[in-house]
Every structure is written in C-alpha cells, then in structure tokens.
C-alpha cells in the first residue's frame, strides 16, 4: 500500500493535533530524496523480508556448501586415487547443471512420496537451501580444487622439510590458495543468490497474508513483478539484488586485501 494513501488516515487514528506536525514527521529533506521508493506499492517490511529470505537461503546454503566442498577439494588436491579424473569431470559437469532440473529433483526428494517426504519440506526455506546447496557445491569445489592444485609444489616441499606434518602442509596450501578459495565461495554465492528456477520450483515464491515473504526471494519477486507488468518495482528489486551482490563481493575482497597488506 502506498505510504501517501496511508498518510490521510493518520490524523483520524492519532487525533487531529498531530495533523500540523505530519509534514514535519514525514517530510524534510529525507522524504524529498526518496520519492521513487515511497511511491512504490511496497508494504512495510515487504522488501526487507524478501532480502532476508534471499540472504538467509543463499548464505546458509553457501556456508554448508563451503564446509562440504573445501575438505573434498583438499583431499582431491593432495591424493591420487583411481577415478580422480572422472570425479573432476563430474564436478565440472555439475557447474553447468541446469538449475531447474536441480529444483525438480529436490522437489521430488522432499515431496510426499519422496525419500525426504516425512520431513514435510515442500515450499519451505529448508528445501530452497537444499537446492542452492546442490547448485553451489560444484563451483566451490572445482574452483577451490584449481586454487589448491595451483599452489607451487616448492611451497609444499618447504613446509614439509621445515618439519611440517601432513596437516601442517595442508594448512600452508590452504593459506596460499586463500584468494582462489574466496573466489570459489563468491562464485557459489553468486550462483545461489541470482538463481531463479530451482527456488521457484521448491520454494513456490510464497508470501504470507500480511505480504511478508515466506519463500519469496529477490529473484522470484523480480520475475513475478515483471510478469505482472510492474517494471518499476522489478527494476528497484533488481537494483537491490545487484547492490547486495556488490556489497558481499566488496566485503570479501576487502578481507582478501587485509591478507595482503597486513
């Protein structure tokens, strides 16, 4: 509901003495600077709830995926085993796996007849996290593995002849590969937060009766608004999504820079 349409109601609710102060309450330079946002039909908390769901789902999925992927990348980077090349090509294929198919498979898994049906996860954030996890894991694993494999063999040798155990050598390699691993996590996050197909299928793009997002993310909201012809709203949400991705990237790059200039 537009804020301006609420404003005339306020004096009735709060009583007339407030009327004189209302322009001051609402107005001032701040409100003048934000006409575009105030004109849009956003309910209180609608945008924030979408941002919250987007970040909650993507960050949780990427965190779980990182905990899962890095050990795999370390083991694959440090050992040779039969089928290693095959495992690598499976991971690389996973990077290009269509997200809608992942969504479909997760939906089957959590549906009533599926193996996880008892958990009752259809159209929940948990199901969305599952599909995002499946999508984010291949890029995080593959890029981390490339970064770990790219660490100079001389550096590993140095850590070992200076008295390092296998764990010490692995820690040195992880530290040397830290920018590559940060890139990997960012790539996973980028894939998760900008993804539409699978979260739409398993999440259902649902808001509550109060207009607060249950499983609606920025991407699915943009898709919905654009389809309904609300291009302005879609653009604003798109700008929020881009700003969010840029912010997360900037934070990670800043952390990496601290590593350089410490």
């Amino acid at each position, binding site marked *: 509901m537009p804020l301006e349409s609420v404003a005339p109601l306020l004096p009735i609710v709060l009583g007339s003495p407030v009327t004189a102060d209302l322009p001051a309450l609402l107005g001032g330079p701040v409100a003048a600077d934000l006409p575009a946002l105030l004109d849009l039909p956003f309910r209180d908390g609608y945008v924030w709830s979408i941002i919250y769901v987007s970040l909650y789902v993507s960050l949780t999925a990427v965190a779980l995926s990182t905990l899962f992927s890095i050990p795999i990348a370390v083991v694959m980077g440090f050992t040779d085993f039969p089928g290693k090349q095959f495992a690598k090509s499976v991971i690389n294929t996973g990077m290009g796996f269509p997200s809608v198919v992942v969504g479909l498979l997760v939906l089957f898994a959590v549906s009533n007849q599926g193996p996880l049906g008892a958990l009752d996860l259809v159209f929940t954030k948990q199901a969305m996290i599952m599909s995002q996890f499946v999508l984010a894991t291949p890029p995080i694993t593959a890029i981390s593995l490339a970064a770990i494999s790219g660490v100079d063999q*001389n*550096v590993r040798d*140095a*850590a070992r*002849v*200076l008295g390092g155990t296998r764990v010490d050598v692995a820690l040195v390699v992880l*530290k*040397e590969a830290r920018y590559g691993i940060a890139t990997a996590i960012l790539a996973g996050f980028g894939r998760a937060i900008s993804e539409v197909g699978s979260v739409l299928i398993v999440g259902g793009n649902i808001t509550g009766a109060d207009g607060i997002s249950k499983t609606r993310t920025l991407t699915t909201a943009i898709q919905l608004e654009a389809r309904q012809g609300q291009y302005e709203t879609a653009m604003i949400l798109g700008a929020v999504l881009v700003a969010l991705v840029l912010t997360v990237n900037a934070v990670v790059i800043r952390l990496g820079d601290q590593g350089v200039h*410490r």
Partner: protein
Amino acid sequence: MLRLRNVSRSYGDGPVFRDLSLTVDSGEVVAVIGPSGVGKTTLLRTLALSLEPDDGAVALDGTDVWTAEESERLALRRRVGMVFQEASLFDAPVARNVEYGLRIRRPWADRLQAQLRSLVGLHEPADAVGDALDVVGLSEKATQRADSLSGGEAQRVSFARALAYDPDVLLLDEPTSDLDPRNTAVIEDAMAKARDRGIGVVVATHDMHQAERVADRVAVLLDDGVTEVGPTERIFEDPSDERTRKFISGELVY
C-alpha cells in the same frame, strides 16, 4: 651424527645412486659436488629424511630413521632443515616465514593462541626469528611481505627460515646458483656461522670454487655413487680416485 650406510635409491628406470655411505658431523660443512643430474638433490632429500631409500640405512644420532615409529621419525625429521635452490617463501611477511618452523613445533593450543594474537596485532615473533634474520643481514626487512623481496633477499630469508629453529643438520641444495656474488657471499658467510653454532651443514653445489671456499670435507658424487669423500684440500690437491681427479681437473665432461 647423521649417517647414510650403503644407501641405494632408484628413480624411474635406473638407479640414482647405489651403496652410498656418507656421514655428517656436527659443526662441519660438507660439500657434495658433481655434475647436474647426478642425484645431488635426491641425496639431500634422503639426508633430510623426507625420502626413504630403497635399500640401506639412515640414522640420526644412532637411531635408525626408517624403522622408527612415525612419531619418532617426525621428531628426528624436525632436527633437520633444508633450503632449496628456489626460495619458496610463503605468501606472508618475512618474520612469519622465518617463524614457521618454530610455530609448527608448538602444541596446537599455543599455535591457535598465537594465531589469534597475530590477528589483533599483538603477536611478537620469537627472539630466534630476529637472530636468524641477523645472520643473513635482513633484520630490517622483518615486517615486509615476502613477495616484495629481491631474489637474493628471498633466498637469504629462506636460509634464515631453516636456521631459526636451530636444526642439528642443515641441507642446502644449490643455494646460491641463482644469486649474484654479493648475496652468494652472505649465504656462504651464514653457512660458516651455522657451523660455528655446531650445526652440521651439507651443501650441494656444482661450483667447485664454492666447495673449496666453504667446505671442511668434500664428497664427489659421480654417476651412481660417491667416488670419494675427504678433507677439502686433499680432494682438490690430491684425489685418490681416478674419476674424481678427472672430474676436478675438468677432463671428465658431462
């Protein structure tokens, strides 16, 4: 103290060396000379206890390394240090590089605590770090990033990194072959200082003049084994082995 007895090691289709015996005592510099590709690096890695020989025994102070328990072998391995031809420094400040050997020898709880302290800028490197950097004349570079150093300085830091935890044996694999004369002189001087501290130093080099300058004893490695070991002067003045004589006089060309 560090002793190879009848050690053999093959690589791929042929033996690198056979039946090789060599002893390194504390407080001496032993130069291993020989042409490229003869197995000097393999020999040094065997001495560094990081490469298991196919045959023969390696013992440090009488303890056979490769029959010892894993934990004991780690303890033995940690009494040895090695410097490669390339500096191979970690992507970190100079002082943290030099401190590495000390750091990994501490219990995990201490390491974690030190890591947390360094995150908030409270960590002070151990005195041994400053001492080791003093030996190679780079104390003033302690806070610089390793990748901001010149090649010669990086190699000197690499030397300090192996010296900082006070090993009993220090192995140097062609440590100066990429360096200019000034940095070479610093490294050679540092070898002498390490010897004075009672460290047994082994330097593999193809530079016979360097061997003559720095070594108390010389081992000549040709083809598949040590042809001769002896005091530096005798090896260069009066080698008893015919092939050693030809190699030193330059008649034996590889």
